[in-house]
């Protein structure tokens, strides 16, 4: 780890807090990483701000988490956006809590193209609904698959028998 990572993360957290105030709920600095836990209504604004003002031009990954069995959590689901800045060589995570009954999340596939498939995976595995996604279809699982396999209440051995072929018109007509 670079020596000045902590200082740069400090400065970044300060700026984000200054800009978004109470929308930044918490900051997790464990293991020398930096994770901003933000209110989910401010998610798109925070990501847009980080992309445009702090040059976080590479969205590494989007991870969904089902927090059902954790000892302490805000809402049942979490979404974690892992950002990386190629020019500045800095990493930051943005985390939001998503309640089970209201799983609408704004899409960021127009900001980073990598979000396209990452969001499709989070949709099929946990059931998040990415509002505005160009083609929200199951990606890794079969299109006949029912349920969300990475939720903690989905059984490990819960295989399903899926046979038909996908016609793929949606993928075909998706703008590039």
């Amino acid at each position: 780890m670079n020596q000045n990572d902590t200082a740069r993360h400090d400065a970044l957290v300060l700026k984000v807090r200054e800009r978004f105030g109470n929308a930044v709920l918490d900051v997790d600095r464990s293991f020398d990483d930096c994770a901003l836990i933000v209110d989910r209504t401010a998610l798109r604004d925070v990501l847009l701000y980080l992309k445009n003002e702090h040059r976080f031009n590479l969205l590494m990954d989007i991870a969904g988490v089902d927090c059902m069995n954790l000892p302490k959590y805000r809402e049942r689901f979490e979404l974690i956006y892992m950002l990386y800045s190629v020019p500045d060589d800095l990493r930051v995570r943005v985390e939001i809590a998503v309640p089970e009954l209201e799983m609408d999340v704004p899409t960021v596939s127009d900001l980073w193209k990598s979000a396209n498939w990452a969001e499709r995976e989070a949709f099929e595995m946990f059931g998040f609904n990415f509002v505005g996604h160009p083609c929200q279809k199951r990606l890794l699982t079969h299109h006949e698959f029912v349920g969300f396999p990475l939720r903690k209440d989905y059984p490990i051995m819960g295989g399903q028998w899926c046979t038909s072929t996908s016609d793929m018109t949606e993928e075909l007509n998706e703008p590039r």
Partner: protein
Amino acid sequence: MSDQKPIDIQDFVPHDGATRAPYSSADFDGDVDPSRDDFNEGLDLPDINTTPMYINIGPTHPATHGTFRVYARLDGETVEKAGVDIGYLHRGFEKIVEIKQYGQVIPYTDRLNYCSGLTNNVAYCKAMERMMGLEITERTRMIRLIIMEIQRIMDHMICCGAIIVDIGALTNFWYFFNAREKLNELLEALTGARLTYSYTRIGGLAWDLPPGWRDNVKAVLKEIPPAIADVRGLVEKNRIFQDRTRGVGAISAEDAISFGWTGPCLRSTGADLDLRKVRPYYGYEQFDFDIPVGANGDAYDRVIVRIEEMNESLKIIHQAIDRVPDGPINVDDKRVTLPAKDKVHTSMEALINHFKLVIEGVQPPAGRIYDATETPNGELGFYIISDGSGHPYRIKVRPPCFYTMNGLKFLIEGGMVADIVAILGGLNVIAGELDR
């Protein structure tokens, strides 16, 4: 002087007004006379240039190197629109590891990118060690670095060999695979396996180097540069290869970064992002090596960048092989390392330690970590959530292929059908990693 009349095209025009090529009906054997009115009757052929054709490439096409499907709408030979369907090799890695112990995850990581399993082993153990605050020994560090670079060479050999086969040159494949076999034998001597190695452990390695292994590496290293030179000589200035790959599937650095590309595919566009340079781990900063970058981001650059990277990896191994210090390979930490067998048989504490490690497994502190490693294909990241127990609460893999593949639709639309194969080969998509 001949009194023949010059051929007048009008003589051959049928009475319906359409022009015909000036051939005589005598050219046909009498059954079919093209000048007959009813020649095309009942056929009613639509104009083939305006009707789109839909084809499937894959999921079991030999040029897809794994199972995924490209569904394309063709206009003649041009790909108008394409959809990419993946998931044929989805095995639920992220689901099954939730009921495994941390140490039991290592064999599953072998199956991610099966062309370079050791790199995945190291990447996972590196994340776990950072989470537990372990400082691995200098010897382990250096051995891991060497095997990672050997795997990088092997992975690039498969990729470069395969793309050249796909566009029609088989010889290069054998040049690479003869050399690769030697490397494979090295790793077989080291790990006992040829594909799924599972050689690293959290906090160290499964066992030490076999006797004479380093001398074998030095001997084998001499055989790799001729193979690379052979292939370069056949490929680099080859007209057919250049025609098939130059300018094919080109992408700008901005687009590639937006798609989340990392590794050689991103570097072929000119961006010099390599974690071994920007975030050196395992002492990469001590070694003298370069990061080859391309200029155009096309299929040609992706192959040449990989070939250059093999040479750089050789440089690293040459420098590192003599720097492997003596000493232990496992950290002296009761949380991760099994006690010595003779102590287990004689000491109560060691017996309890052994029992707890085997039954309960490694127990990292509760928390979350994201750790990234530069694998042959790009950045392999592990996002691990621990709740303090012996089982991972959640492991999210960030496979480099997944995001490279995301850009495939962008690359192949507007190109030719035959270019799909050249583009796919250069991306080096490994389905095991793509679908997890």
